[in-house]
């Protein structure tokens, strides 16, 4: 299973939730599969999806799902201790770990070699960390929502991208409709 197949499978779970989606092809894929005003697409700034999602989860009560990648978490590793030490029960970090930098040509990441992001999250102090196979992602994500506990999910999948169009929506439009959805 590759990331776009996971996104297709979990789209019905994501639909009604606030979602912060990682830069590049992940956002293009989610946008093409099921664009929703509750989706915030990152068009730049690699690595900050998990931080934006945490800030959002800490100031309001609705669940927040961050769709991140292994490469992006590696570029902002300081996020893991911040997440662990500022527990937001409505926060779910879903790391789709395909062991590669998908948006830049599938160069391998260290997460695809010796490094375990799940163990790093645990070592950072995150209490509910679940590593799963790609096929289990939907079930694990739904359980995390039902648990109402801060959860880090590391979904191990294959490397590869679906061919999707670039997002041409204006960033201020993405942000404005997202803020209205947060408030609704």
């Amino acid at each position: 299973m590759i990331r776009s197949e996971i996104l297709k499978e979990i789209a019905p779970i994501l639909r009604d939730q606030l979602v912060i989606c990682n830069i590049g092809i992940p956002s293009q894929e989610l946008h093409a599969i099921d664009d929703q005003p509750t989706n915030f697409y990152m068009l730049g700034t690699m690595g900050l999806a998990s931080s934006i999602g945490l800030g959002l989860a800490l100031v309001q009560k609705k669940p927040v799902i961050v769709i991140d990648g292994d490469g992006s978490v590696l570029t902002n590793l300081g996020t893991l201790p911040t997440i662990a030490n500022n527990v937001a029960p409505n926060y779910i970090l879903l790391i789709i770990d395909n062991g590669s930098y998908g948006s830049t040509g599938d160069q391998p990441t260290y997460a695809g070699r010796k490094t375990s992001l799940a163990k790093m999250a645990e070592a950072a102090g995150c209490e509910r960390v679940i590593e799963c196979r790609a096929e289990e992602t939907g079930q694990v994500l739904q359980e995390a929502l039902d648990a109402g506990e801060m959860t880090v999910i590391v979904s191990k999948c294959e490397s590869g991208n679906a061919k999707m169009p670039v997002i041409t929506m204006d960033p201020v439009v993405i942000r404005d409709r997202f803020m209205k959805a947060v408030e609704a």
Partner: protein
Amino acid sequence: MSIDKKITEDLVAAKIGFVTTVPCKQLAGVIDEIDRHPDIFHIPSNKEDEGMGLCAGAWMGGTRPAIIMQNTAIGVTINTLATLIQYYRMPLPMLISYRGELREPVACQVEMAVHTKALLAELKIPTYHFHKQSDADELPNILDYTFMCNKPVAILTDANFWGGYGDQ
């Protein structure tokens, strides 16, 4: 009222409820005040770009944010300022310790100080420089201005503003 307390009260009066900080010796007092204040959620960040991500999320969630950091962070956060805060048009007051200015004891700090205002100008970030304590009287207006125009705004506070480094 101490300057640390005055700055904190100004933040609260501007309805800022979420502050992220990366520590600095000059800012230690104001960070303490913010940490103690019941109306502010204080979340230390490990790096300033991470902090700006937290602030972006808090603002989209309906809470006004601010970041407290050193001027060296301008070098760290240019991409985040351009592609997140400015691109999506988000307000962000940045209370910045302006290291490397007059009364600075550490020579290396000067190396980023000489670039600080040029970088902020290149980014078209409105920039205010507090040199004397009375300059802080402008803070409420600067905060209102930031949330009026939805831009990052820099408030540089130098060693003279903070009263120097002991015997320096």
